[in-house]
């Protein structure tokens, strides 16, 4: 293996052309993902998590465009792929599962036919082999009575079952990367835990890398190697799970952490982040979070904070962090 990361996203910008104007959903995000690692993307609703994932898969709707940036898979820019190349790439190298398993399977085809299709597209196996593989995948994701399930239609399965089927479909061709877009948000809590555990187990077995998208920092705390916190289509903070949780530098991240319910401190009140999300049609000149930030300074309103290294496994884009680091370094000199 060379030392090129499996997936490199560089300065990705995505916009939607709408009647009201250009909706800038993703505004320059960058990250690397290494083979077999788990990357978490966290942010509140509307922060551009899904859109950034769709941009990587190139499954944006007609009105969406990647306006800038590169997506390198093993060093090759997949944004330059032809539609044909992209078809054979999707599902075989990068797969994706989605938020709402109730609506993500086609209601008029059987589970089996959808699963077999996913396998057939990317391999030249015989009918029997495809069938066997479909069965094997259902067993692998823990679907009971797999033979029967193959013949059933999606509406005959529960939500958790359907998400398992989605996972089976996504992993059938052993992709290098699985993008999971809020895979548990629509499920109830016990099922959520089961699905997360299943994904972890499968990751150990099959060794793919995972991009885990969620708006709930608590969900991904222990499964991610690295976490990206997004706001208004930008990366606020990026670092290892420990760094993000125990050494948050961006005011938005701090807010997110305060809003996680904790089992241990029962009497502590949950603190929601005040204010409403930023208008993506007219992004502010300075930091997008400034209007909701308790510690906003003058510079926050006029200039965009740059991504600064806190240490070699932690980046934050916040003027308060810059100030703090500056003071720390001065304090260090003074001592």
């Amino acid at each position, binding site marked *: 293996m060379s030392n090129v990361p499996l997936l490199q996203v560089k300065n990705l910008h995505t916009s939607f052309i709408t009647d009201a104007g250009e909706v800038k959903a993703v505004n320059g995000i960058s990250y690397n993902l290494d083979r077999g690692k788990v990357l978490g993307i966290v942010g509140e609703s509307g922060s551009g998590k899904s859109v950034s994932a769709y941009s990587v898969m190139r499954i944006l709707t007609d009105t969406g465009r990647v306006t800038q940036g590169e997506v390198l898979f093993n060093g090759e820019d997949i944004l330059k792929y032809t539609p044909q190349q992209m078809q054979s790439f*999707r599902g075989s190298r990068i797969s994706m599962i989605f938020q709402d398993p109730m609506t993500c399977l086609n209601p008029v085809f059987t589970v089996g036919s959808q699963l077999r299709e996913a396998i057939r597209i990317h391999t030249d196996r015989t009918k029997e082999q495809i069938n066997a593989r479909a069965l094997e995948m259902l067993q692998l994701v823990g679907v009971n009575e797999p033979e029967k399930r193959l013949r059933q239609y999606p509406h005959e399965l529960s939500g958790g079952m359907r998400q398992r089927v989605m996972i089976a479909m996504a992993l059938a061709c052993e992709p290098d990367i699985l993008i999971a877009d809020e895979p548990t948000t629509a499920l109830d809590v016990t099922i959520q835990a089961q699905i997360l555990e299943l994904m972890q187990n499968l990751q150990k077995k099959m060794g793919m890398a995972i991009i885990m998208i969620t708006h709930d920092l608590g969900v991904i705390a222990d499964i991610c190697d690295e976490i990206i916190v997004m706001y208004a289509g930008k990366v606020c903070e990026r670092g290892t799970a420990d760094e993000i949780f125990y050494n948050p530098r961006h005011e938005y991240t701090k807010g997110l952490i305060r809003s996680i319910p904790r089992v241990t401190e029962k009497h502590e009140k949950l603190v929601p982040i005040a204010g409403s999300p930023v208008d993506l049609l007219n992004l502010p000149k300075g930091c997008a979070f400034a209007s909701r930030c308790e510690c906003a300074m003058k510079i926050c309103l006029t200039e965009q904070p740059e991504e600064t290294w806190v240490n070699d496994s932690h980046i934050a884009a916040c003027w308060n962090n810059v100030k703090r680091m500056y003071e720390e370094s001065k304090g260090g000199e003074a001592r």
Partner: protein
Amino acid sequence: MDNAARSQKEKQLIAACIISLVIFAAGWLTLPILSAKILLAVVLLLIAGTLFFSNDTGRYVCKRILLALITVLIIAAITFFSMNAIPGGPFSKEKAPSAAVQAVLEERFHLNEPLGTQFLLYLEGLMQGNFCISTKTGREISTTIFESFAISAKLGGYAALIAIVLGLCFGSIAALNRAKTADRVIIFFTTLFVAVPSFIMATLLLLVFCLKLGWFPIFSTSNQSYVLPVIALMLSPMSYITRLTKTSMLDVLGQDYIRTARAKGVKQSLVIFKHALKNALIPVITYVGPMMAYILTGSMVVETVFTTGGLGTKFVQGISNRDYPMIMGTTIFLATLMVTMTLISDLIYKVVDPRINFD
């Protein structure tokens, strides 16, 4: 537990068999005519099917056929009795035959029997494909119906086929080119065709392409002469299907499962023609049953304009001639046809949309 339930069910089955056999035997002995006995047997079999078919579809089909039979029977009764309630009979003309001749004729056609018996006799005739004879022409009505239906079926069949195929194509094209020129052109014309009533369209077509330009002949048996009436018949349903397909296609293309299909790496053409179209078809199929009805009844106007001699023409003629057996015959025939169409479209609906639950 499971065994107990099964033996319970077996007991029910045996009981039902015995009961239906008894009803059947009693009916066989008491009912006066053979076809009524056969009808009874069929109905009993269907009821048995409704109760004891193990899969939903079988049960549903039995139930629907049963309901269809009952519907047709009721329609036949309503038509028969209302036709008889209208004052005047076959002999009330200016030049009525003598009383003796009337008596002989009444005897021959059972007109002297009570109305109930007449109805049973009529039903018996129907079951043997005998629709009585026309009081106007004296021909067998069944022959007239089948001859003219051949023409109507050909017209309606082509019109329906073309309307469905073109409607689906144009609708998909409009949806895939939303707000572009192709979409605008298609929507303009389909709005126009939905708005213009078929008799105006038919008259215009006849006037321009047949009489003025002479491109197509006056209606005859030649295939060419079918072109104009087929166009007149299919324009409005085609436009409707186009618009329906467009809306439902747009709706389906925005659904999550389409994104799933693309994320799987399915080819764009297959995403549209397999994953999207099959879903987009569902509302269209619900329309196709009534559309057949439209084509068959709408055809009365179009057929009259083009004087095709189809079933529609005969029906209208029957009414203006006060040819009661003719009206009855065509009404019952059309009703049967309609019920069958609806049944078929409902069954197709089930094939396309597995979520439909029959019970």
